[in-house]
């Protein structure tokens, strides 16, 4: 659905752009292709690393690490796992749900989801290419620390009546 919308919308906008200005549209096409190709060399390598990680790290393994009684250590473990793993979101949330059903705690899952989406160790070198080493480091570090705050508050919120 999203895909059709995206492709359709892009096609539509390009048609308008082409009617308004041929030259500009050609430049836009070139620029678009260039940014796409720029992502590829790293992306193609990264998907194999992620694939391997997910193939080795089975849900049962993760579940046993971050059970409901694992406390702060469990939260820390989830944050670390979430930082080094990268999952497409449509995989991440069902996995999170499955982990919850297998006995993982809410704070641990919150830390996992938070770092899965915001902290990227495998994509770090890619990120530094765009915003520099220092800014990328600060951003990932802050997002990592913030995951603990999210875990704490979600734990409190879900503890009541959940």
């Amino acid at each position, binding site marked *: 659905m999203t895909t059709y919308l995206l492709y359709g919308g892009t096609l539509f906008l390009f048609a308008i752009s082409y009617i308004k200005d041929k030259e500009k549209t050609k430049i836009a096409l070139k620029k678009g292709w260039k940014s796409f190709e720029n992502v590829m060399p790293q992306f193609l390598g*990264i998907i194999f690393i992620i694939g391997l990680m997910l193939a080795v790290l089975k849900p049962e393994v993760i579940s046993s690490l971050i059970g409901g009684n694992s406390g702060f250590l469990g939260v820390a473990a989830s944050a670390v796992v979430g930082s080094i793993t990268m999952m497409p979101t449509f995989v991440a*949330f069902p996995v999170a749900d499955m982990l919850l059903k297998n006995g993982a705690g809410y704070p641990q899952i919150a830390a996992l989801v938070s770092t899965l989406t915001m902290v990227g160790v495998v994509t770090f070198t890619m990120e530094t290419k765009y915003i520099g080493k220092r800014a990328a480091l600060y*951003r990932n570090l802050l997002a990592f620390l913030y995951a603990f705050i999210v875990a704490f508050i979600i734990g409190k919120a879900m503890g009541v009546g959940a």
Partner: protein
Amino acid sequence: MKRLIKRYSFFLYALLAAVAITALNREIGFKTFALAGASFKQMLAVLPPIMLLLGLMDVWIPREKMIKYMGDNSGLIGIFLAILIGSIAAGPMYAAFPFTAVLLRKGVKFSNIITFMGAWCVTKIPTVMFELAALGYRFTFVRLLINIPGIIIMGLMVQWLLKEEQLREIYSSAEGME
């Protein structure tokens, strides 16, 4: 050809490693290839149109407009726009990186760029839908409530942590990047 091999060397090593692992352990190897294939498919579903839209944005939106609405003096509007653009996005985190290059070139304030990246990760609408379905409205709502101020604070903090000249360097290196 040689340049192409060098450019894609990381990919080639990863591919070789995956083949080697398949020779050692069939199950893990096949799973790795299947998962990599799924990631690739997911990428094809969103990345090409996003990059093309990025090209259009680069060509059609003038720098002055971007500076006015998202630059150093854009205040709350800049933050609001950063979150809005990040939320309507689709695609994984790495798809946001080329966007940052364009935003940098257009003179968008650095804190807004970091907030945009944060929004891309946590308030993206398609993702939130998945989350609602998988983890329930209570979890999702509380997480958004903590994350929205969080990504704003993170943006401001990253900018605050960087020195003036480091920021200048980031902006000037984005100039040379397509």
